Each structure stands twice: as C-alpha cells, then as structure tokens.
C-alpha cells in the first residue's frame, strides 16, 4: 500500500497568539508543532502500512519555508518520520503564512501525482491555525478521488475501505473505493509519541524536495486583528426566573449554542 500523509506546522494550541502587524502573527515565542489531527492521521497511516506488510510505505508531505536552516515544514516531516513513516517530500514555499488552502491543495496534488499510483491520502480534518477544513476535500477533488472528512474509523480490505465519519449528531459508515482521501478526526487513532530511537532513525530517512510553481492566491488575508474584547461579566439575574434571559444571551450574544 502506498499512503501519503499531508501535514502542516501549526502553532502549539497553548501558544499565545499576538497579532497587530498586518496579516502576520508575531512569531516570537510561538512554538510550532505537528497538528494534533495530522498526528492522528500519521499514526493511522503507519498502522495501516504495518498491517499491509511488504512493499507498503508511508510518505509524509508538507509545504513550507525552506530557508532558515531546518524549516518548520521539514521538522514536521521529521516528526512523522519519527513516528515511523518511511520518507518525506518537502514542497518549498517562500510565502508560507496565510497561503491559500486551494494553492496548498494544488501543490500537494502535484507532488502526489508526481509519485504515480497511490492508495490513500491522509490529512488532518483541520489545521488548528487557519481552521480552514479545506485541504483534504480540495485535494480529493483535484486528484479526482473520493473523500471522507472527519473520519473516526477506517478499515481497509483490498481496494475498498470501510470508513466511519463523525458527522453532526450522527455517525455514517461509508464504503469507499481506493484510492481516496481521508481527513482525520482525533478518534481515528490513539495519540502516539515518538520513541527516541525512531527520532534518531528519522534523521537518516530521505526527504525529497518537490518544486512547485505557486499560483496567485484566490483567497487573501489582508489583516489579522486581535479578538474583540469580551464584555465584562454580568449577573443575569437571581433565581430560576433569570434562566430565559440567560438562554437568550447564550444564543444571541455569546453565540455559544448551536440551536
């Protein structure tokens, strides 16, 4: 089986994000990590490869800035290699930040097509920075293969996969022909952390560079701003009679309810 895992360096979710200078975040003190969903995707891909046995491989793909010594994208590829993937592909991107997800999907599709046949492509369901939820379905569309998003279960039998999708309030079971694109929810795999031996091995694994002519963006971030100041806390009222007003505020002001 040939499996691709597309990953993205994202700021650690506990990082303090400072904005205010144009369309960029202040990178000082921000630690980049492998996205939590990307990490589950990688774990699942590696488990499938191990189960499939001979001749199977997992290839980690990321786009990112090639400069500044070891780029964040290269490091994230190494993270996946340390979890057990076989090799990596780095797509250099000079202006990585706020890159249009469609352009990223095009780059990934080109890199994957360049590799010939494949069985599965994994992405995280979303990157925790731009939260676009986009690259997986876009990539599938560009590759002309089916896509299932928010996947919490996956079994492969020959050229067919049985896929569980966690939709809103329901779980769908789909039967999907390979090749296909899967976007990983957390429950797709247990969280793995790399063994030290694998970290050392990862350093010796091959990371190829795939050059891509980046298209003009169709989606452009013109400015990043801090979130609106939260309104000061308030006592809605006393006793059960205050409840209807609370529910109204939660729905209309806080927009905290989905109904």
């Amino acid at each position, binding site marked *: 089986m040939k499996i691709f895992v597309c990953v993205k360096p994202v700021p650690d979710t506990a990082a303090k994000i400072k904005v205010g200078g144009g369309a960029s975040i202040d990178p000082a003190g921000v630690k980049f990590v492998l996205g939590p969903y990307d990490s589950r995707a990688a774990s699942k891909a590696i488990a499938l490869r191990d189960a499939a046995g001979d001749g199977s491989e997992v290839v980690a793909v990321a786009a990112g800035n090639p400069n500044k010594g070891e780029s964040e994208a290269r490091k994230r590829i190494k993270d996946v290699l340390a979890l057990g993937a076989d090799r990596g592909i780095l797509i250099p991107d000079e202006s990585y930040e706020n890159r249009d997800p469609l352009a990223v999907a095009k780059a990934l599709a080109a890199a994957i097509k360049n590799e010939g046949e494949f069985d599965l492509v994994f992405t995280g369901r979303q990157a925790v920075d731009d939260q676009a939820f986009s690259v997986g379905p876009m*990539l599938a569309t560009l590759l002309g293969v089916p896509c299932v998003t928010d996947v919490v279960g996956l079994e492969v039998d020959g050229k067919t996969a049985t896929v569980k999708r966690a939709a809103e309030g329901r779980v769908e079971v789909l039967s999907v022909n390979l090749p296909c694109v899967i976007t990983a929810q957390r429950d797709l795999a247990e969280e793995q952390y790399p063994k030290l031996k694998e970290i050392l091995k990862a350093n010796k694994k091959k990371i190829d560079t795939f050059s891509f002519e980046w298209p003009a963006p169709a989606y*452009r971030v013109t400015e990043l701003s801090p979130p609106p100041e939260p309104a000061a806390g308030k006592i809605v009222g006393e*006793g*059960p009679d205050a409840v209807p007003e609370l529910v109204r505020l939660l729905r209309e002001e806080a927009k905290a309810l989905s109904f």
Partner: protein
Amino acid sequence: MASKILVVAEFRGGKFKKGALECVAEAARLKNSMGGGEVTALVIGGAAAKQAAASLGKQGADRVLCACADWLEHFNGDAYGRIAVAAAKAEAPSVLFISATLDGKDLAPRIAAALDVGYAPDVTKLVADGEKLTLTRPLYAGKAYATVVLETSPQVVSIRPNAVPLAESEGGDAPVSDFAVDFGPDDLASKVSSVEAAKSEKADLTEAEIIVSGGRGLKGPENFQLLEELADVLGATVGASRAVVDAGWRPHSDQVGQTGKTVSPNLYFAIGISGAIQHLAGMSTSKTIVAINKDPEAPIFKVADYGIVGDLFEVVPRLTEELKKAKAG
C-alpha cells in the same frame, strides 16, 4: 447591478438546518444591498427535503432548485459535491453561500476546488462593496480574526451558524424546480452504508465543546443527575471540582483544575462551584463561562461571563427545560 447568489441549503433530520436558513437570509440582505438580483437555493436530499424546499422562500430565496431523490437522502460528500458543482456551473453565481456545519465544511472546499475559485471558510461577518465581499473569520481557535477577500468569482463562503440573523419578516414560498442529476449511486466511488445517531458517549473533557461542571454545592453524588440531564440537552460533558472528586462523588477523570484537566471549551457551566484558584486554573480560558451559585460573592462570578445567583436545585432544572424548548423551537 443584478447579482446572482447561490445558497446550498442543508436539510437534515427532517428540516432545514438553522444555519441554512441564516445563509438564505444573508443572501437576501446582500442582494438588496447590491440593488437587486436573485437568490437561488439548492436543496439536495430525499422526498422530505423536496417537500420543504419551497419554504426557503420565507427567508428570502427567489427560487429553489431541488436535486432530490431517495438515494440522496443521506449526506455523501462525493455525491452532494458533484451536484453542487454542477449547479454552480449552471447558475454561474457571483457568490455561493453554505452554512459552516460539518457537512458544509466538507462540501464547500470541493466546490471551490472544482471551480478553481477562492473559498473563505467559517465566516462570522460579511461586508459587501458591490459584489465584492470583505469577510471576517476567526483563526487560531478565536485568538485572532482575519480579514479576508476572495479574488475570484464566485466567491465561495461558508458562514458560521448563529453568526448572521434570520430574516426579520418572513416572505412566502419560493417556486421550486428540479435540478437534474446526471449520475446515479453506482457512478460513485463511495457509498453510505449506514447512518446511526451519534452515541450518547460523551466527548472527553479536554475535547468537549461544552462542559457542565459541578461542585460541592450539589450536596451529594446523586444530585449530579441534574447536571447529566442538562448535559444531555447540550451534548455536553460533565466535569467536577476537586472537592467532589476527593469526596468520591465523581471519578478523578472528571476533575477540572490544577491537578485535573485543563479545559478550554466554547461554553463552560460552573454549577455550585465557588471558584477556588485551583479550579480556575483549569477552566478560565473557556470561551464563555456561566456560573450558577447561591453566594453572590463567590469568586467564580469574577471570571464568569454570565452569572445567575440562586439555588442551583431550582435554576438547573429550569435551565434544562428552557434549553429543551429552545432546541425544539
């Protein structure tokens, strides 16, 4: 300048999603601000969806296209995506809206990729200058907001549910016409074989969108039933303060706080929790915090966005009831 806006309206569980109605309403407002045009809604689904299709006129749809067949009753991204792309190509709108539900977020990128146009996901605010939209969307889990423009037409936008209002006054039904689907289930590489209601099994505390936590004010382990009921309505996970975990009322895995879990849900209910620093350490980054406590001086009110001072044994059942009503409504 007459503009065309296409809304892909999600029909699920026997009715249109609120987000879908909001998208239609927003499209109608946009049309008016642009001095006229046409709002077309695309409905994909089974017989029930077809039956309800005309009602989108009430939110401002001028016409409704219906791609409805029994085999399309269940969501399938590949099938729905293909239909939406075909409709977008046929209609050639300048703007395409879809609600940013999970299904919407699955479909919109497929549409944008197939049309080779820009897509702005999960938008919370839209400003129109003619046909050109300036969009606002939260990034980094709401720690930053991006102003975004799309350089292509159509501009594909998914709108976060509850971010835009419904129509102030309802209109009448809209005319419905069929949108021909030129493929069948056998032409697809993916097939939905079953759909089950999501298990009532709750999300882990650290991943829950909504948490309902209880403290010593609950007076005993049996009273956590009140919180379980509230949590069921909200699809929330129940948490606890250290005091009640130490008392053995709840398992340690439920504990929020310094030595328990650090959580950051969208919505956090602190019920009968005074708000010791150890507890605050684990939940103060929650997006919206609601406190219910009988002591108006309780420190939890200092971090709460909304507070109700009162007896939780009266307030919580009422809250459960009101939420049930709101959900049904």
